[in-house]
Structure formats: structure tokens, C-alpha cells
């Protein structure tokens, strides 16, 4: 048998949604469900291996071709960028990037340079660049909502799902930046060298997306 097709999944919520989708598509994911601490897991009824990784690493592994395919959020794709094919919008993991600020504050007021706190500096930079606005970006690792509350920043650029966290902290969305969902990405060489396997797998998955 040829080398198994390796799919990197983003650990956490996307992983669950993807496993559900794979099971719905008829793949035996028991090994993934009972994974313990293992990180490379076989799909028993197909020549496929699942690799569990953090979102950014999914892109890295696929870009280098050590994983043939990956499931990762559009948020990570926009932030990281890279060279790979983005073949399918899986539809789950829906949320959006948005600019938020303290409720009632006029974010765009005046000509002072604004400070933006974010986990996604590239997204923030590109967004304001398209508006022709110079901003200061502060990268925050944890709860970004804190930054405007502590008056470190005028606003934040972050992922917004329901908006509850924003509301509870007295923030509101000023502007939506882009909507996000999980994507199936494929290494550029794998798609060419293993075209049939990958296309077959994708068509089964697309069938079960509906």
C-alpha cells in the first residue's frame, strides 16, 4: 500500500467538527476519538492518517508537504498566509474578524494615530492599510478585550463569534472585517502527485457537507 494520505487537523473545536464530518463521510475515526496523548492517528478503513496540531502548525506542516492536507480556520490562513491550495470551505467554525472599541466611543474621531491591540497583527495591519490609516499595533496573547479597558489601546481586532464577551466587557463591534470558516487546504505538490486520492476524498467530503 502506498504512503497514507496525511491530514492535519486543528486541535479543539475544529477537530471535533472535522471528525464528525469524516465519520458522516464513512471514515472510521475511533482512533482519533480515543487518541489519548497520541498525535498521529490512523483512520482504520482508509489509507489516511490524521495529525493533530495547533492551527498555525497545520499551515506549516501542509506548506512543507509533510502533511498532504489540513483543516484550518480562515483566520489562521489570513494571518499566516503561505503557499498552498485552499480547496474547500467546510462551512463550520463560522465567526468573523471585527474591529471593536468601547461602547459609545467614536473610534474614528480625530486624526491621532490609533492604537490597536490584537492577536492578529497582519489582519489588523492589512485592514487599516486598506483604509489608508497608520496605526500602532500591540500584540496581545491572552484576552484582547482587556487592552481597551485598561486604556492600552483605542480598539481591538479580534475574532467575534456571538459578541457576548464584547458586550460583557462594555465593548461593541465598530466594523466587520471579514467572515471566517474552516477551510480544507492542500499542499501544492501533493495535489498534483496524489490527485486522484485527494479529489476522491474531497468529493466524498463535499457530498457530506450538504
Amino acid at each position, binding site marked *: 500500500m502506498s504512503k497514507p494520505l496525511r491530514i492535519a487537523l486543528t486541535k479543539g473545536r475544529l477537530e471535533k467538527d472535522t471528525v464528525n464530518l469524516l465519520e458522516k463521510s464513512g471514515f472510521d475515526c475511533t482512533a482519533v476519538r480515543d487518541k489519548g496523548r497520541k498525535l498521529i492517528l490512523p483512520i482504520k478503513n482508509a489509507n489516511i492518517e490524521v495529525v493533530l496540531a495547533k492551527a498555525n502548525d497545520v499551515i*506549516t506542516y501542509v*506548506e*512543507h*508537504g*509533510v502533511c498532504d492536507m489540513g483543516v484550518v480556520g480562515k483566520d489562521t490562513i489570513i494571518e499566516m498566509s*503561505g*503557499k*498552498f*491550495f*485552499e*480547496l*474547500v*470551505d467546510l462551512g463550520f467554525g463560522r465567526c468573523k474578524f471585527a474591529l471593536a472599541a468601547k461602547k459609545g466611543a467614536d473610534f474614528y474621531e480625530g486624526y491621532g494615530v490609533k492604537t490597536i491591540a490584537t492577536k492578529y497583527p497582519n489582519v489588523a495591519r492589512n485592514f487599516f492599510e486598506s483604509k489608508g490609516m497608520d496605526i500602532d499595533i500591540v500584540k496581545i496573547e491572552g484576552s484582547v478585550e482587556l487592552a481597551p479597558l485598561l486604556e492600552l489601546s483605542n480598539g481591538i481586532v479580534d475574532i467575534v463569534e456571538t459578541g457576548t464577551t464584547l458586550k460583557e466587557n462594555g465593548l461593541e463591534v465598530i466594523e466587520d472585517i471579514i467572515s471566517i470558516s474552516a*477551510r480544507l487546504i*492542500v*499542499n*501544492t*505538490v*501533493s*495535489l*498534483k*502527485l496524489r*490527485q486522484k486520492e485527494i479529489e476522491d476524498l474531497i468529493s466524498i467530503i463535499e457530498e457530506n457537507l450538504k
Partner: protein
Amino acid sequence: MRSNDLITPEGTKDLLFEECIIRQSIENKIHKIFNGRGYYELITPSIEFYDVFNHSSTYFPQEKLFKLTDCKGRLLVLRPDNTIPIARIVATRLKDTPLPMRLYYNQCVFNMAPSLKGKSAQIVQTGIELIGSSSKMADLEVISTAIEVLESCSSNSFSLEIGDIRFFHELVNKLDANDEQKEIIRNYIENKNYPALNDYLDSIGKNDITHALKKLPRLFGGEEVFEKASKLFSDEKIDAILANLKDLYNDISQIIGNGNLTVDLGMVNRTDYYTGIIIKGYLEGYGEEVLSGGRYDKLISDFGYDVPATGFAVNVDAVTKVEMKHNPVEAFDVNTIVYSEPGYEMKALKIAEELRKEHKKVEISLFDSIEETKKYSEEKNIENIISVGETVTEVK
């Protein structure tokens, strides 16, 4: 200030022993192929004026270039590409040389690598440029050379892919869209970003051209691609492009040997100065293409000499990496050491020289005693120890 005196810059590395041997052997094999076909080597400077790379048909984003200035404050760059300096030479010093010209190079390109991604900033490329012919025979010559190179430089299975950039250009130019919109479409097709491409084209309009463009990134694979493509859109020009490509495909399929031949009509890279046929080569075990090239009939005219050309480049570092993994070599293969007793040094040198003529690899012992020489030989796995004194003896 912290000194960086013990490390190399990100994206660069030192090559040691085995890597050098493998790289050299790959280069030798490839250059023999080039030479046998009448290609001759050029070496261009590593540093060029920025202006050389800043023409309308080329695209080198500032942030990827290594920049310096000369003593007059003019902007210089480390060459990010090998074909463009050759185009410069062709349009200047080689302008009056009879055509066709067959040229090859083997030198580094420099591109600022994204941080912490494990990518190289300095890559050795070797490749050919066939200048002065727009004939099908020229395309065939370049492609058959590419196949021979892929075949010879690795035992891993390879795949060669062909496409034609004109297919995309013809389609997108029929679209009522400005350059910025066309660039967005091109980008989505290049990344085979099906969902985004669909949404974007829907926003431009629904007609048979947007329909065809939506399908374009999916037009890759074997011979069946031509039929699919011909159903998508048909007019005189597009039919001719497809017929030409199919013709080439059929010809190449006869010489592809153990390799795999595919077509991708969705190859539409931004950096490309290509104007016709495009080729890419892949090796099993490497996550990016190892060979890329194509026809660039307008590039040299950027330098004032309107002449068609075609060629390709091989990423020698990539092939070396694949071979390191699949066909490792032993670097330290000295099998004989010659030890000289005090006073017999010149005799020892002479004997070592004779042994080398018998194709042995011979080291001279620099130790003061035969015991130390023995110990060293053991550590280094050197089988034969020759002791030179009044007599010459092989020490066990």
C-alpha cells in the same frame, strides 16, 4: 550589543561534507546534460542594480529583496532571479551573436525568506535559456531537457506538468474588469481557492467567461483536461492555444519515460514573466516544485532587444535535500594512512603519491608515533596503515 558571530543569518546555512558531495554530483550530472546539448555557462554578478529587476513584465516585491547601495547611493540588490540578468546580457553584450543561443547558469538566487518558516533565503539554481526561437521544436528541446534532468538527478519518481498562461490571459481579458480585479482573480486561481473565486466572480457577473474562470483552477490532471477545457469556452484563439498544448502533451508523453506527465491550465503565478507554455517539475518527497520554467517572449525586450526565449531552472538545493534522504553518501572514505618514521618524510610522501595512483584515498599521518596513528585510524575507520622507515610495512 549582542554579537552574532557564531551563527549564520536566518534562511542561510553552511553545507558540510555529504551535502557538498551530493550537490556537486547533482550539478555535474545536470551540466553534462546541458553541455551535451550545446548549452554554455554564464556567470553573472551576485549584486545587480535594482533597476534590472524593476521592469513592467516582472514582479519582485520590495520586501523580498536584499538591498544594498553602491558608492554613489544607487540601489543594488542581491539577484532574486537568474533569468533576468541573462536577459540583460543577451540584450547587451550578446546582441549581435547569431541566434539561437543556448546558455546555462549555476548560481544562487536570494529572496528574503519569511521569518521562522524553515525556508531558504539563498537557493542554488541551475538552468538553461534557449534564446531566439519561438518554434515548437524549441519548446520540445527545453521540455525534453527538463525531463532528462529530472530523471537523472534523483531516483525518486518525478512528475512534469505543463500549462499555457495564454489560456488564462485570453479568458480574463474578455472579462469586463480592471487590472486590480484581474489580479484578485489570478491570485484565487493560483491558490486554487475555489470558494473565494466563486464568490468573487459571482460579484462581477454571471456569464460564460466567469463560468469558465471558475472552473479554471480545476483544470489539471491527465489528457482528459483538454476535453474539459474545450467545453468551457471556445473561440479561435483559445482553441488554438489548447490544440497547441495538446499537441505538445502528446509529443512529450512519448518521451516522459518513467515519469508522470500532467497538465494544469490553472498555473498562473504572479512572479512569472511567462508568455506561453509553462512547465513545472515535482519530485516525490519534496513539498514544492523542484523545477520551473517556460516561454518568456517579452522579457528580453524590456532591455531593448525583441527576441523570443524559453528555459527552466532547477532548485539544486531541493534535489540535494531529497537525495540526502534517499541516497545518502559517506563523506569520510579515506582507506589508507601513511606514517613516516622520523627522517623518512619525503619517502612517505612519495609512497602516498604512488598509492593514490592506484586510486586509493591516502592520508598522511601527522602523529609522532605509530601507536597514535593506529588509534586515530581506528576512530576514523581507516583500514590500511602503511609505516614508512628503512622498509615499508603494512601495519596490522
